[in-house]
């Protein structure tokens, strides 16, 4: 039972991180119908932004305090939002009305560009760097149960962000415009929606969430390096597909499911080496029975 609870908390924290990243994949897919492979690298840039910002911010608010952590996260999110908008503007917008495959390959190109530029010694360098302690880390022990306070922070903070995202998309005017653009770009422009601005906004939000996800991931990882985004990026992408690509609650659910699977199987003696195989087998199974994902709707549009 304790083991179960322990894994549950671990899995939720990991799943929360995947969920944050998955939102970016699914939102961009929603408006542009392609997978932004560079998203994985934006989360890495978020972690690096935090790495470089932390010492200066710590001088103001003190090392590993809540204001420091919050300031670093907000600044990194803003930096990544700008980077996300730039990627869209420079790489994807000129290809807007080209075949999806062209855009997809460009996305892979952008991703490789960021990864290998980052590995250059004059940029970040390929070596793993120790991520600064942003928050005072406490071990919380209840009976035989131990969990890190960071995991609880990750889960709580993510829940707030997901709720905020839901509010933005479902209850605000810009969110309504995002949904309209996602359904039909031309019809949205006939309502007076500046489609380019909405797409930029989508990239900004998605990238900001990725930055937070990247920082959370770095807090749990041994260190950061320019390829660190690849693995969680892939998982988050799978989470988005699992939940139903283009569907926001689906991405969140997919992330949590994937995080739980990974920690539960990873935690079982003898099975840990197979956790990815199991996760992917499950994904294939689910998609066989629900091709549109857990919460995805089958297309039933009237024409």
């Amino acid at each position, binding site marked *: 039972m304790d083991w179960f609870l322990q894994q549950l908390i671990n899995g939720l924290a990991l799943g929360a991180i995947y969920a944050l990243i998955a939102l970016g994949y699914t939102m961009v897919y929603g408006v542009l119908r392609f997978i932004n492979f560079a998203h994985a690298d934006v989360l890495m840039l978020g972690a690096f932004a935090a790495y470089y910002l932390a010492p200066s911010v710590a001088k103001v608010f003190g090392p590993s305090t809540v204001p420091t952590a919050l300031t670093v996260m907000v600044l990194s999110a803003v930096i990544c939002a700008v980077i996300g908008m730039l990627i869209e503007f420079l790489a994807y917008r000129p290809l807007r009305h080209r075949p999806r495959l062209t855009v997809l390959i460009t996305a892979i190109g952008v991703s490789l560009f960021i990864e290998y530029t980052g590995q250059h010694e004059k940029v970040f360098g390929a070596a793993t760097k120790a991520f600064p302690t942003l928050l005072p880390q406490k071990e919380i022990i209840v009976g035989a149960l131990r969990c890190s306070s960071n995991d609880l922070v990750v889960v709580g903070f993510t829940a707030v962000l997901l709720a905020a995202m839901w509010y933005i998309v479902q209850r605000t*005017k810009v969110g*309504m*415009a995002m*949904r*309209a653009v*996602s*359904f*039909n770009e*031309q*019809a*949205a*422009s*006939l*309502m*007076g*929606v*500046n*489609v380019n601005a909405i797409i930029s906004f989508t990239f900004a939000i998605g990238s900001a969430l990725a930055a937070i996800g990247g920082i959370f991931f770095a807090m749990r990882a041994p260190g950061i390096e320019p390829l660190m985004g690849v693995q969680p990026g892939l998982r988050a992408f799978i989470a988005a597909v699992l939940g139903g690509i283009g569907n926001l609650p689906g991405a969140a659910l997919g992330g949590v499911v994937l995080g739980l699977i990974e920690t539960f199987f990873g935690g079982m003696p003898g099975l840990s080496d197979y956790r990815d195989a199991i996760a992917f087998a499950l994904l294939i199974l689910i998609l066989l029975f629900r091709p549109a994902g857990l919460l995805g709707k089958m297309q*039933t*549009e*009237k*024409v």
Partner: protein
Amino acid sequence: MLEIRDLHVNYGAISALHGISLRVPQGQIVTLIGANGAGKSTTLRAVSGLVKPRSGLINLEGEEIAGMAPHTIVGRGLAQSPEGRMVFANLTVMENLRMGAYLRKDKANFAKDLDYVFCIFPRLKEREWQAAGTLSGGEQQMLAIGRALMSKPKLLMLDEPSLGIAPLLVKTIFEKIVEINKELGLTILLVEQNANLALEVSHYGYVLETGKIILENTSAELRVNEKVRAAYLGG
């Protein structure tokens, strides 16, 4: 209100419009009729900015709008109910109407116009919270027109409001179009396959054939014109 002069539109190498000119005077219903592929929708798409004209002038209330982005043109007072309706299936009826009013700032008048739309299309009021994708074809057409009205346009362009709708409902929708024109004094450019109905409700008509205007006259005259009768009114 609207004046188009020598408009040319190409799709790649295909020329869809080769030099059309037309005028839509303030307060009138003007119709554009023609066979499939004549270029009726293309004309509307050029005016609303969805396609960029190759050459020609499009003047809306004294301002040249050819080549502007669609969302800018909407801000100048143009609303289009596009071919195939294109209601936002994933949004509720209410949200669709809000989308229509996207650029408007005046909160007070929003409620008034909403009431007006619900008054001419009471069906929409009943379906307020339903996803637009689950409406019937006719209801979607009402929503498309209502949504266009919500921007409080100076010029309303309707592309085949009768498409795929039962004859009885078509009659109702056309009555509403006349009502809107009369009560709000709204200028309307109407594209229709159903030439009979279109010429019945409109003041003036243009006949489009493979990208050219071949005939224009008052609607009353066009209805008794031999050529029009033979080609579009079934003899």
